[in-house]
């Protein structure tokens, strides 16, 4: 299928507004559950969308002929999205997963038009009687990465290629540095906002700039493999994003936080089949398996052991990441001794912890 999102980027939506992703679904018997997926990127992005598609394939593996899955890739986060979602519902898809933050309002609107269809929106916060939201606690993986960085970094300064200043990214930076400081209390984190989720050239430039400023471990909150390739060239270490990127940088990737949507997708399909589907807000982390750490490489055994212990600690609840005392960059207390931030405070986080260098763009 052609990549319309990129056409839009090139030409402005106006020129190609008429172009619409094609959906081809053969006629099916009534007892087959049809499940639809709306993807932001191409299935082959080897990152965010790729992992969602792995989840879709898990459904196919588990249910075989009982379900029929359809996906539409490269759907822009615009008014077009609602049409694509509604189109899937009109074609008889009973359960539809919309897998990007920007599909939030289009999903809610489509859900009003199709009250008998179940919708699952990833990374949003608007619920309805037939709309659930789900998201992974990516920050847990960042904390594990931070612990590794704290033990591996010689300069005590790590770098973070951030995409845009939203809570999702900010909590990732904070968790990373908290993990790093749990082993090296004076560690620092420098960051660059690249203002994109996917632009290999820009991401690579940011990686170079951070390394030039003395960061000897860098992690990225963007989707391409370009930063890892820069780490490898410059002989430093870093992490993969969303998926195991080891083969792109066999000498540089320490581990990666891998989004594992499969178990959740399988469960929700089962719920629809059983008639037990209910609107819910799911925020799963390492414990529920929605987030996994890729195999540990390029680090000494004691670091592997510490990383694994951290992972277990988060799973068992022994390690609580956003637990007081927490101070922001100016030293103002955000939480006192032993007080744990609730999910609401985490998901609306707009401050950086002490030790992060640089201001958030206002």
């Amino acid at each position, binding site marked *: 299928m052609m990549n319309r999102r990129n056409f839009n980027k090139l030409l402005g939506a106006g020129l190609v507004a008429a172009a619409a992703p094609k959906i081809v679904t053969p006629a099916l018997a009534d007892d087959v559950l049809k499940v639809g997926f709306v993807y932001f990127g191409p299935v082959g992005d080897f990152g965010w969308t790729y992992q969602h598609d792995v989840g879709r394939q898990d459904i196919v593996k588990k249910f075989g002929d009982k379900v029929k899955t359809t996906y539409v890739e490269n759907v822009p986060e615009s008014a077009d999205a609602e049409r694509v979602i509604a189109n899937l519902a009109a074609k008889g898809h009973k359960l539809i997963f919309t897998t990007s933050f920007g599909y939030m309002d289009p999903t809610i609107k489509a859900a009003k038009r199709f009250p008998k269809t179940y919708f699952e929106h990833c990374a949003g916060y608007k619920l309805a009687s037939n709309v659930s939201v789900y998201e992974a606690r990516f920050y847990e993986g960042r904390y594990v990465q931070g612990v590794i960085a704290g033990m591996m970094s010689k300069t005590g300064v790590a770098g973070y290629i951030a995409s845009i200043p939203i809570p999702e990214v900010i909590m990732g930076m904070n968790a990373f540095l908290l993990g790093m400081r749990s082993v090296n209390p004076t560690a620092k984190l420098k960051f660059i906002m690249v*203002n994109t989720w996917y*632009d290999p050239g820009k991401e690579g430039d940011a990686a170079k700039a951070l390394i030039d400023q003395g960061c000897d471990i860098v992690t990225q909150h963007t989707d391409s493999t370009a930063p890892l390739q820069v780490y490898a060239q410059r002989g430093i270490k870093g992490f993969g994003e969303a998926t195991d990127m080891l083969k792109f940088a066999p000498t540089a990737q320490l581990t990666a936080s891998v989004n594992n949507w499969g178990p959740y997708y399988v469960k929700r399909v089962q719920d629809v089949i059983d008639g037990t589907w209910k609107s819910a807000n799911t925020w799963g982390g390492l414990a529920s398996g929605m987030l996994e750490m890729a195999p540990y490489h390029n680090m000494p055994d004691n670091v592997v052991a510490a990383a694994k212990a951290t992972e277990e600690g988060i799973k068992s609840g022994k390690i609580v990441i956003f637990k007081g005392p927490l101070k922001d960059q100016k030293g103002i207390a955000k939480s006192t001794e032993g007080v744990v931030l609730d999910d609401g405070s985490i998901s609306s986080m707009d401050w950086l912890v002490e030790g992060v260098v640089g201001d958030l763009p206002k």
Partner: protein
Amino acid sequence: MDETSIGWWGVPLAIFAGAIRISTPFLFVSLGEMVTEKSGRINLGLEGTLIMGAMSAYGIAYLTGSPWLGVLVAGLVGTIFGMLHAGICSLPKVNDIAVGIALMLFGTGLAFYLGKPLVQPQAPNLPSFNFGWWSDLQQVQSALKINALFIIGVVLAPVFLWALRNTRWGLILRIVGDSSDAARAMGYSPLAVRLVATAFGGFMAGVGGSFLSLYYPGSWNEGLSSGQGITAVALVIFARWNPMNCLWASLLFGGASALGPALQSVGVTQGYYLFNAAPYVLTLLILILSSSSHRHIAGAPGELSVTR
């Protein structure tokens, strides 16, 4: 500052390295497009050609293990696209801009379609020369790692300038571009000359694309180009159809692109959206400052539809 950090020195260094690294695809595409436009035709399809070049270079380099073979094939694929553009434009009453847009969409779509299986494999990259051996600083060494294609581009720019001014071929190209009637009267076929010029422009754009997939960022994926092909076409007008100016314009654009991340890394976060837009702001500024309503754009080929 710790000893491994170079602080503010990172900014000029990043601009220098960015000028070289980011400019290379701009340089190749704009040099090729300059030749095409000199013949009196504009090819907007080079974005598609660039992406086709990137995809085919990556595929060939992966299959054969030779990045240079990939560069060559990218050029040949670009030539085919250029000939396609020229061929369609040879038909009567065909608008070259519309054909260009159609070919841009076609090339991009075809490359994504054919390139699906190439996202995951790793192809060998083009070599680079290390001019930073004299320095102990890793940062300097990295900035002075200069890729072979850039050096070729830098050599080509003055050669093009000389060839346009001093060779028979350059003269014919300019005649066709300035007045097809005059060219016909002298016995030259404007269509044939434009075919060659557009095919050559396609070749250069294909090679420019191979830089993206085989050197920097050095992988194949659908978001690889961020509009370099179309920007390069604009750079030609900006460069007033002069090959040396194409080089300077590409360098300027590349350096300005590196400004955003470099400034952020030393702690300048105020107005970072503006820094990221620096190359575009700069282009606009120079265009406005250098434009004049009193005379025809200097150096513009007379037959070019956008300047007529």
